[in-house]
């Protein structure tokens, strides 16, 4: 052919090939760009919530060392609000005034900060009932309960005999207990330096208070926990069976365990008196009970996540330092000769598996910290030993910790979205200094393959998340208090009363755009109690009461009454004003506290 075309023909051929190749390449590039644009548009459509419409899900993310709970809407990833738990928040009038209940609660239980890790939701019949949310404070051995009708922290308790309050879970299906683990081994009882008396416990809490009903001694560091769907078993991953105190000592063994506590057996042990009371709590030593309470299933190596499948059949331990997930058949636990025989499978999934979650269609999704991936795998295939159990992988940015599919901790996962809670964000957002925001990534899991839809930032640092359908929770959320509190001040009842030689009580209403009293006069040194009622009946019409130079701010939602007490120790004029921009006359909504000097 070359010969036929001659030398000029050769040039022509080369030129044609070049033109054809360039055309093809441009065509392919154009196609790819168009496809990419189409994918971006499709992703945007999935996460865009039109103005005025609501997200499909509430996502409750722990606020980590911010000591709070963050409430996002999904799929939009919009921050709706945060709930202060272990930290004061003046905007909501939470724990910012020494006399307030919320302040006293934090002071009684420890520090004015917390390290929240795992939010959990109350269940009825294995599904979320929208009553309460609990969250641990890893740093100060505390557990708090939030009332979801008000999105407000209503109870906080110290949990004795444990440090590093880490794993926390609801005992399904009807919230019979809240279980919480001590991840750090320390003296039990505390109060003396005795390293040979180190131990850790799993505490079984009364859901409402939430104070311990009893505790069970654990053989190592109790990490992440969960319960069986029938309420019979409490599970936790255990690492450091070595009982070491340094990293080197803690990773010596190739196997640690998933511990399973037989809850009826533990309750029976308490009834039989097989416990010691330590720091006011009944503590069971599982080595000393008549009936076996504790079962240890060997799991490689320093396992982390502990997750029960929605059907209640398996509990899974994610390997962390082993590339495997260990699948344990719950029904076999107390029937096999050795707990090891309850292991139904141990699929390799990737490097650094930390947590596993579920779509309710027989698939598991495991976060791979080291690989920076979410891996989707089929449970039945993994159990059957079918080598094709890996279904899909998706890259995330970067180093995922927890991952949760929506409603995966109930018996009915929604199977549409999964949240990847990543530990590092690096280049994902506008730089805001060396402290980077955390990165959450939303993944569509409704199809066979996963699609990374969007990412959104958060304050440091969410560890874990739980979700509720908006249609289940929104109708239960109070927006205007219907029943006035017993100490509510009615319109026209604002007044000041001297109740003692050095004590006054101020009763005031707040409504657009006036406080009930334009001014009130006290004497220097008076103990002043102010009872303030927001008498609005309109949704979203909050008022505040900030008192200059006295460091006071109260926040009052419509219908709410709050009370503060302080000593008027500075003579002069002190303006109080509304801190919530309530109306066109918001700036004029103010008054004066007149403090007469002692020599006046």
């Amino acid at each position: 052919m070359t010969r036929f075309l001659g030398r000029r023909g050769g040039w022509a051929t080369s030129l044609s090939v070049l033109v054809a190749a360039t055309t093809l390449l441009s065509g392919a590039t154009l196609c790819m760009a168009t496809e990419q644009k189409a994918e971006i548009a499709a992703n945007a459509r999935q996460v865009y919530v039109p103005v005025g419409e609501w997200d499909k899900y509430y996502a409750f993310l722990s606020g980590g060392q911010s000591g709070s709970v963050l409430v996002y809407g999904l799929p939009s990833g919009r921050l709706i609000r945060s709930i202060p738990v272990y930290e004061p928040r003046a905007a909501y009038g939470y724990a910012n005034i020494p006399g307030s209940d919320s302040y006293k609660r934090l002071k009684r239980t420890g520090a004015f900060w917390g390290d929240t890790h795992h939010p959990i939701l109350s269940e009825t019949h294995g599904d979320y009932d929208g009553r309460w949310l609990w969250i641990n404070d890893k740093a100060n051995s505390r557990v708090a309960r939030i009332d979801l009708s008000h999105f407000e922290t209503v109870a906080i308790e110290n949990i004795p005999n444990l440090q590093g309050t880490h794993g926390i879970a609801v005992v399904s299906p009807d919230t019979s207990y809240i279980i919480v683990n001590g991840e750090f081994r320390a003296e039990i009882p505390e109060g003396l330096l005795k390293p040979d008396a180190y131990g850790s416990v799993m505490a079984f809490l009364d859901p409402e208070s939430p104070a311990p009903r009893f505790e069970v001694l654990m053989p190592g560091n109790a990490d992440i926990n969960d319960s069986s769907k029938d309420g019979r078993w409490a599970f936790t991953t255990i690492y450091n069976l070595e009982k070491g105190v340094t990293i080197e000592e803690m990773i010596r063994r190739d196997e640690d365990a998933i511990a399973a506590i037989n809850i009826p057996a533990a309750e029976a042990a308490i009834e039989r008196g097989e416990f010691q009371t330590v720091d006011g709590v009944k503590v069971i030593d599982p080595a000393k009970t008549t009936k076996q309470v504790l079962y240890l299933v060997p799991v490689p190596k320093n396992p982390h996540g502990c997750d029960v499948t929605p059907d209640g059949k398996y509990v899974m331990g994610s390997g962390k330092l082993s590339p495997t997930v260990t699948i344990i058949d719950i029904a076999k636990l107390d029937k096999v000769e050795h707990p090891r025989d309850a292991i139904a499978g141990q699929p390799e999934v990737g490097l650094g598996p930390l947590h596993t979650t579920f779509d309710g269609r027989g698939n598991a999704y495991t976060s791979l910290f080291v690989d920076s991936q979410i891996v989707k795998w089929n449970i039945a295939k993994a159990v059957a030993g079918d080598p094709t159990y890996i279904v899909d992988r998706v890259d995330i940015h970067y180093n995922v910790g927890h991952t949760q599919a929506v409603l995966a901790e109930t018996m009915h996962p929604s199977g549409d979205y999964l949240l990847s809670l990543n530990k590092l964000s690096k280049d994902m957002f506008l730089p805001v200094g060396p402290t980077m925001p955390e990165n959450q990534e939303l993944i569509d899991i409704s199809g066979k393959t996963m699609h990374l839809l969007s990412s959104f930032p958060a304050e440091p640092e969410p560890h874990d998340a739980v979700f509720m359908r908006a249609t289940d929770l929104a109708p239960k959320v109070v927006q205007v208090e219907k029943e006035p509190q017993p100490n509510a001040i009615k319109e026209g009842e604002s007044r000041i009363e001297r109740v003692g030689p050095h004590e006054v009580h101020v009763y005031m209403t707040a409504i657009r755009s006036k406080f009930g009293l334009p001014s009130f006069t006290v004497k220097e040194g008076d103990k002043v109690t102010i009872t303030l009622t927001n008498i609005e009946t309109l949704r979203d019409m909050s008022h505040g009461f900030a008192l200059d130079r006295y460091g006071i701010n109260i926040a009052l939602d419509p219908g709410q009454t709050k009370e503060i007490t302080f000593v008027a120790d500075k003579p002069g004029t002190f303006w109080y004003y509304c801190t919530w921009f309530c109306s066109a006359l918001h700036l004029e909504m103010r008054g004066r506290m007149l403090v007469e000097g002692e020599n006046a």
Partner: protein
Amino acid sequence: MRNDHIGVRVLLAAAVGLLLVALRAPIWTTRLEAPQYHGEEALHVRVYAGHISGDLHELETLNQYIGVTIPTDIVELRVGPWLLGAFLMLALFALLSSEVRQHRAAALLLVLMVLSVVGAAASAEYRLYALGHDRGHTPFARVEDFTPPLLGTTKIENFEVSTALAPGGLAYLGALLLAGTAAWLTREKRTSLRAPEFDQQMKREGVLDG
């Protein structure tokens, strides 16, 4: 149309029922909608025969910007239930009467109800005018004088104000129409009662002879 007792009684019984509704249900209603009070959160005022209900607390709060004087004692609301009660009794009387008495009662009911409508509309118009013009206390914000419509929609500052007859008002109008129909239907009976005189007249004039 003669001897249509049952039909007329049914109409009058229905009128009694509708007057009962008018006595209990709101007669006239206002809906106020603004950007921050839209959809389900629109404000409502419902006027009954004897009282006013609705988002009065909120309107009173807003009123500090507008400076409207809301009368505390509205005489029409004191008279209203008694008037409706009297109409109810009259309708019952018509229902239980017959022949000429029934007609007269129905006709009287019609006339009184029409007069009441005219009176109520006039007084309401006056009240609405006074509301937007007779500004008793200094408003916080400058708002032009206004008159909310008796029936219809208008814009007052950022509020779209719509007024309409409520179920009680519609029931009243229904009762009025029924009373009117009853009066009309019983009219022929009155003529037949006078038949002998009529016949004599006809005879005198030789009409019947032809």
